[in-house]
Structures are given as structure tokens and as C-alpha cells.
């Protein structure tokens, strides 16, 4: 049967092809239009994984503005702020996260880290103690505490904490 643009079959195939092509183009556009926060979140994740924290902050912030609120998003945003030298913004983010998860020692420790990064060692120390109240003897919290004490010049206390982490008498 000779090929003809006018034939019913050809028109049918062309219509299908057109619908398929349109779907391929429109589906992502529709997804971006209706779920921009997810798109920004994914882009933020890509930037974070590539170590581009400035870019990550931009995308995560947009995701937050567009309504995405999740544990992971706030955690990554806080980390990105600390890594880009804006620990005070990190504090704000981790405070927000702690409000949602007051019993989570990991979040409390991140908050302590943000305080430390902004040179508020006293507040950092208090917050590490909070983390240790939530998870007694947690090595990561003890490690951060020893680092803060070292910065404060309380060397013997810091040495004893390292000894405690290692289970050795010093």
C-alpha cells in the first residue's frame, strides 16, 4: 500500500506521535509548575553533593519558600549555611528544626555546631550538654565538647573527654 499523508492511518499515527511528543515536553514543565519546591529541592541536593554550598543555599531556600518543609531540607540548609560562612543563619535553621524535633539529639548537636561556628562557645557548650542529656555518652557530642573546651583553653577537661571517648585513662 503506497504511503500517503492523506490516508487515515498516517493521520492517526501522526496524531499519536504528536500527543507523545507533547506529553514528553509538557510533563516536566507541568511538574515544575505544580511542584517547584521539589524541583528546587532536587537541584539543591545536586549542588550540595557537588560541594557547591552557595548554590545549595539558593535552591534549598527557594524550596523552603515554595512550601517544602522537611527534616532533610532544613538539615541540609543549615549545613550549607555553616559551610558558606553564615553560621548565624545556620543557627536560625537548626533552631527551627529543633522546635519540630526537640527530642532529636542529632539536631541539637548540629545547633551546637552552628553556635560554635559563630564563635559563641558558651552557647555551643550548653547546647552540647543538651544533646548529651538526650543521648548520654554520645561520642560525637563528646568530641564536639572536647573541641569547644580546647578552644576555650580548658585543655585538661578536653583531654579527659578524649580519654573518655577512647575508654582510656590519661
Amino acid at each position, binding site marked *: 500500500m503506497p504511503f500517503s499523508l492523506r490516508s487515515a492511518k498516517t493521520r492517526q499515527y501522526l496524531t499519536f506521535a504528536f500527543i507523545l511528543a507533547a506529553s514528553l515536553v509538557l510533563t516536566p514543565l507541568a511538574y515544575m509548575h505544580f511542584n517547584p519546591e521539589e524541583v528546587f529541592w532536587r537541584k539543591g541536593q545536586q549542588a550540595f553533593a557537588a560541594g557547591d554550598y552557595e548554590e545549595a543555599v539558593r535552591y534549598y531556600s527557594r524550596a523552603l519558600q515554595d512550601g517544602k518543609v522537611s527534616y532533610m531540607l532544613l538539615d541540609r540548609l543549615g549545613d550549607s549555611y555553616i559551610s558558606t560562612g553564615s553560621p548565624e543563619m545556620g543557627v536560625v535553621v537548626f533552631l527551627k528544626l529543633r522546635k519540630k524535633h526537640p527530642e532529636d539529639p542529632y539536631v541539637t548537636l548540629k545547633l551546637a555546631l552552628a553556635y560554635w561556628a559563630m564563635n559563641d562557645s558558651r552557647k555551643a557548650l550548653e547546647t552540647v550538654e543538651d544533646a548529651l542529656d538526650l543521648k548520654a555518652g554520645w*561520642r*560525637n557530642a563528646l568530641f564536639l565538647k*572536647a573541641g569547644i573546651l580546647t578552644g576555650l583553653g580548658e*585543655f585538661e577537661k578536653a583531654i579527659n573527654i*578524649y580519654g573518655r*571517648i577512647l575508654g582510656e585513662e590519661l
Partner: protein
Amino acid sequence: MKVFICTFFMIILWAAVPVWGQEERPGENLLQQERIPPDFTEDIQDWQARLELARLLSYVERYEQSITHYRKVLQEKPDLIEARLELARVYYWMDETDKAEELFASVPKDRLTGEARLELAEIYAMRQEYDRAVEVYEAYLQEYPGEARVRFRLARVLSWKGDYQSSISEYERVLESRPGDNQVRRHYAQVLMWAERYDEAIEELEKTLGD
């Protein structure tokens, strides 16, 4: 008489002027170190805690204990260059230069930090291996020509090996960038004396007296 005047000046000034380029203690950077957030997604490993402990112990001058912990870190992480270099520094500070050099030598040259290279040069100088020290300093200064502190050390080593003319040239370059540094000028004057250029030495020593 000139020798007497110069010597008199030197004694007075030596006592009066504070030492420039006082060495840092190992672990000196503990208090100023950049706060890179640790990744708390995994538990801190023993070697990480031990490395921090070793650094702190070296800072508080408990060198023997510090060495023990550095050694344990290296047993677990033999490729950890930073631990190797820091341990070498502790040995260097304990004047165990053989062990320090052995450790420095165990690190690939391209992984030696600037500070480690300078310490290695100090070890060579201490052992009176002046040519090797000069070689390290000159290589360093090719990369960082503006480092007056290192040029000063080079000038000193050159004078110790008796190459007064080169030493004087290096001192002059240091003084170009630090004209008000009396300690450098005092060393410069001393080399001028050794080179028997007494009039210039007196002139330089007079400058260090100020008003």
C-alpha cells in the same frame, strides 16, 4: 677599636630587642584552626578522637604522650599524611631531629606542607648541613618570594656557612620590606662585622638605637 664598639653595641642590643620569628609550638593552630564542621552522620572513629588528643597533648607539651597517640593513629591510618607531619613536628620540638627527618622523608615531596619544608630546613641547619638548608629555603622563596621571615632564615644560614656576601644581599632584601625591624638589622650588622665591614656595621647598629 671598631670591633670593640660593634661588640659593645651587639651585647646591649641583643638583650634589649625581642626575638623576631619566635617559633610556634606544635599544635599552636589548635586555638585558631578553621572550624570545618565535622560530619556527624557517622560516629566519630577512634583515630579521629586520638588525632585530636595527640594534637592537644603536643600543645600542652606532653610530648611523650602525644607521640604515643600519634603512633597509634598511624598504626590505624598509615597513610594519614597530616598525622605523619605533625608527629615529625613533635619530634622536631623535642630535638629528636633524626626521627623528625625520617618522618619528613617518609612523606612524598609534593605532599610536604610549606611549614614542614621549613622545619626540615631548620633540621638541616641545626646539623650544620647548610647547603641542604639553603636549597630548601631557596626553593621555598621561589614559590613565595615575599616571605620575609623565610628570607631572614636563609640569610642567617648563608652567614653561618660563611657566604657573607649572599647573606648580606638577603638581609638587604628583608630590610627593604621591613625597614623598621631592629632585630633583622642587628643580625645584618653582625654579618657585616663578620665580613669585616665595621663602619657599615656601626652605622646599622646605630640605626637600631632609634631616637
